[in-house]
């Protein structure tokens, strides 16, 4: 794959990801992640100081899945 093709695929993924959340299809949202992943919401200050904790911290896809 060329750099341009990779860039286009990443852009398409980002667009689909945002569209899923905007359309409130939250049940589909975990499908954008691989099973072993890290999803973390933190602040710029925590990031800068190297603090590992997040406001939300999920280290698997299933932690964000609805049963």
């Amino acid at each position, binding site marked *: 794959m060329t750099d341009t093709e990779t860039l286009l695929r990443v852009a398409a993924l980002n667009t689909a990801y945002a569209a899923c959340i905007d359309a409130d299809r939250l049940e589909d949202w975990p499908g954008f992640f691989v099973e072993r992943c890290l999803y973390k*919401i*933190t*602040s710029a*200050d*925590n990031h800068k*100081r190297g*603090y*590992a*904790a*997040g*406001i*939300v*911290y*999920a*280290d*698997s896809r*299933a*932690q964000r*899945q*609805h*049963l």
Partner: protein
Amino acid sequence: MDGTSVQPGLDGDMRAWPPGLTRVPFWVYQESGVARQEQARVFQGPTWNFLCLEADIPEQGDFRTTFVGEMPVIVVRGEAGAVHAFENRCAHRGALIALDDAGNAKDFACVYHAWRYDLCGNLVSIAFRHGVNGQGGMAKEFDMRSIGPRKLRTTTFCGLVFGTMSDATPPIEEYLGEAVTARVRRVLKKPVEVIGRFTQPLPNNWKLYVENVKDTYHASLLHLFFATFRITRLSQGGGVLVSESGGHHASTTLAAPKTADSTYRDAGLRSDSDSFRLADPSLLDSRDEWGDGIQLQILTVFPGFVLQQIHNCIAVRQVVPRGVDAMDLNWTYLGFTDDTPDMRAIRLKQNNLVGPAGFVSMEDGCVGGFVQRATVTAEDEESVVEMGGSSAETQATRATEAAVRGFWKEWRSLMGM
């Protein structure tokens, strides 16, 4: 303190407090006169206020900007390991001396007119003190030692740094009492390190949040996550310890027995529901790292400090009033410096329970606002604080509001009500 038992109301009339500890009038969360007085009598009175962790300021010159009530404070590591704290207010025109949340400084210079302070908070230089070209400047006899930001006394205990404005505040262990002292020592048994720091702004008077933390009755009723996943239920063992002053408390929940417990379902309570399951329950994996079976301990130090252990999730919380009907809750998440990677991973995941988006703490962040909104015209009405009787004493159950009554006992004593 003038010992009066009544308070001036909004229109200057005097308000009486209902007798006993089981009623709290709603005007205490609403009146600016009360808020002003509690700055002087509670936060700047004979109380120890949490300033920061020793781990926040390990080296000389390390500082944090923090608060005692609404008063901005600089806490800094000085020479030979000493910890100094002083008001973050320039003695000249009253500007903030330090603007950053934290840093390292040789001294502090106010940005406004460059007046400088040493690490103890002493004024040490005045820009153009002797004027320019022989004109202007301060009077020759002006003594820099005659002014300065107000200084606090500091003390450290288990890695926590506290400050007080009063000469009358007793040593920290005496202030806490033997039982609460032991409960702090239990959790902070080893050196800690900060693993995250977040602020949760709450739309309510600071006292509503402190009451919520001391309210052992609500935890498994408001918080579906606690009851459904058996982190704390009133039917589990444990109890609430209230200090002699009433101001401090520690509540504990023992690990749940492996047998079925239908207490909540039989009572038809929302917070225990079959329809809630976790696709990945690894968040609930925990270790009995204290070896005493206590899986939850919530502790307060009057007026506004919380030490929390929920399973392996350790945090300190600082209550900062922001006017009458708002406050900031400053969360600092902790690990021990000798955590294994596995242990640290457990803590990071369990932190989802707490903080601004916490499965549990998010709800505490709402409920104070619900009270503030519902009582907006109910200043002459009262809340009922009668679960578990009318005293503010230690009890072997959490189906009680003893620690809430204790808070009011100490608050009223300091406020002279």
